[in-house]
């Protein structure tokens, strides 16, 4: 198969799409326009053209509309936020399709600022609508995208800590990642924080505003970087399309460090992951700990050939949205399911028991259960246990135990 491999950074204001073969990035506003007279939808320049001519109605803040169940009424027809997002993605993906002449999407990784289950589910519905198999679609956080981008660079770029400032119209964020080399697999831990000092980019249009912006950035860099050792600092976001307005800040961060400016970093990081997901063996042989990835390993005690062991149901570093599993077990011993939750610091290991007392009393090992695990975020696991009985010997009941477990 030789389809499109796309990394997408989907934000409320702009969407970046990076494509492999040919390597190209599209940056378009996250808006969609509906023709008033026909069932036609437009994005990018066409959307603005039709809106200016007056035969189109433009809708923006598409992600917020999906998250808040927003609707838009165009020509007496009410469109849900999800429908608008579908139309936007369909039209946006036509850009690389037209450019490359390829119709099929082989791998699509979408990076979003905040991993919200509703938005993630909606994006998966969009994939269904666009006839892209769910197995080819991955949703990651900006933090993870940053991590993939950095780890795909030369070793000297990431051998120590890496910091990144993201200044966009929406927010001002600081990201940081470091490598933890241990006995086992290498771990890459990345985190991010929203900086309260964020400002509107219009401020930079006046010399006084630019000077103020520079001072704000200097103070943030001073507080966040201190005198710590960084292999490199990355600048991204619309605010850093041009760095002339922040000379002091640039001088400060460039001292004894490599500094990179990459405006489409999140879509390029997503593209790295999209390419990697097509490989039989990953090129990123490390455990990734960041937003969107689990920070604890969840396992249950199992009995196998007379020996007790742990069966890992979800491991630290797994994508929590994709770490859904359903396994069937026979309950041996007391009627309960005991989860072992081991965070990165194994000393903080904890055991969580879910009692099966609500299920009928049966002889030992004659209750088959279906254990489904899912996560609503990286700290919350939902366990659903169904009673499957034991064939005709002990028929199943419709009893279901659902419990939220805090990791």
């Amino acid at each position, binding site marked *: 198969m030789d389809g499109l491999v796309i990394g997408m950074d989907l934000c409320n204001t702009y969407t970046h799409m990076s494509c492999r073969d040919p390597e190209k990035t599209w940056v378009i506003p996250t808006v969609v326009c509906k023709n008033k007279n026909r069932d036609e939808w437009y994005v990018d320049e066409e959307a603005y053209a039709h809106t200016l001519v007056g035969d189109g109605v433009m809708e923006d803040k598409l992600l917020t509309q999906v998250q808040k169940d927003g609707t838009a009424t165009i020509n007496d027809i009410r469109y849900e936020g999800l429908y608008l997002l579908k139309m936007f993605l369909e039209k946006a993906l036509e850009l690389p399709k037209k450019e490359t002449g390829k119709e099929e999407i082989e791998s699509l990784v979408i990076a979003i600022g905040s991993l919200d289950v509703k938005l993630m589910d909606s994006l998966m519905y969009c994939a269904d609508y666009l006839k892209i198999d769910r197995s080819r679609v991955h949703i990651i956080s900006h933090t993870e995208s940053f991590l993939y981008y950095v780890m795909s660079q030369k070793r000297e770029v990431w051998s120590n800590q890496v910091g990144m400032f993201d200044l966009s119209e929406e927010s001002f964020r600081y990201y940081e990642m470091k490598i933890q080399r241990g006995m086992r697999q290498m771990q890459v831990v990345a985190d991010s924080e929203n900086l309260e000092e964020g400002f509107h980019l219009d401020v930079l249009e006046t010399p006084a505003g630019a000077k103020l912006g520079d001072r704000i950035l200097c103070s943030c860099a001073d507080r966040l970087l201190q005198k710590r050792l960084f292999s490199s600092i990355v600048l991204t976001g619309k605010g850093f399309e041009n760095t002339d307005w922040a000379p002091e800040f640039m001088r400060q961060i460039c001292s004894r460090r490599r500094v990179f400016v990459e405006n489409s970093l999140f879509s390029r990081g997503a593209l790295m992951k999209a390419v990697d997901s097509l490989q039989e063996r990953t090129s990123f042989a490390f455990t990734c700990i960041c937003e969107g990835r689990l920070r604890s390993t969840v396992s249950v005690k*199992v009995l196998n050939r007379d020996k007790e062991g742990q*069966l890992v149901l979800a491991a630290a570093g797994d994508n929590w949205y994709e770490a859904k599993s359903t396994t069937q077990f*026979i*309950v*041996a011993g007391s009627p309960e399911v005991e989860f072992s939750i081991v965070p990165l610091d194994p000393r903080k290991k904890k055991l969580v028991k879910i009692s099966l007392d609500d299920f009928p009393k049966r002889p030992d*090992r*004659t209750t088959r259960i279906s254990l489904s695990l899912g996560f609503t975020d990286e700290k919350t696991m939902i366990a659903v246990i169904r009673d499957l009985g034991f064939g005709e010997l002990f028929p199943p009941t419709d009893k279901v135990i659902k419990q939220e477990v805090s990791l």
Partner: protein
Amino acid sequence: MSLIVCRQEPVKHPFYIERLGLHIASSQELCYVIYNNPLLALDGFVDERLIRFIREELDLTFLAGKLETWRQSEEEQDEMPVIILQECYYYTSREIAKFRQKIAAYRKMSRAEFMKETADYYFTLRQYGTAIHYYNRILEDWRIKSLTDEFTARIWNNIGAAYAGIFWFEKAMTAYDMSYNFQKNLDTLKRIYQLTLLNPELKLKERYMALLTAERKAAWEKELSDIKEKAADNEAVRKVEELFSRDPIRRKAESGALLAEWKREYRKML
């Protein structure tokens, strides 16, 4: 506490165990049946049909192959249920060793004792017809001639109970009568008397009349009436009563299903 991971077994056609009147659809259920019914397992349970089920439905080709080879060899056939337990990892090694000991203990029994165990086992499964068949084989087998009177009385007593279980009271009366011939047991006499209460057409033999004092009769009558009273309070009876309080359409459908179930159960008993 721990869990046993269930392997994916693509069973489309569950295996019917006629003796137990149930279908099994997993290797765990198969092990459970074998472990809890060793006499069934020793009674030609592992046959070609079961091996085919293991191969085609449970997808345990290695185990099926092993059983096939074992079956064709001169090896001890009692080992086959043990092989199944060992390969399915549902029971621990200690439990399997216990099962093996149980089988060995059965095999150490005399032919009559073993046959009685088998018959008793079918009796507990309420398969009275099969139980009677095995009890009669003990009495008819020309090789078993050294039965004690006490043992023979027990066999006849059990035959009587089995016939009573399928409501064949005349045959039950004859069997209890035979039991009493071998051992003058007051319990047997009680059963004979209670049979006449259940079926007034049955007449007591002259020889029992003298033994039936008014006091004994009163006590046994009360015992039977207590049992009947307790049975009337049974869950199954309550279900039938509930059924008759429903609307006619549902009653008809449900009573049809219930009758079919009873017929099936009764046929299994015969």
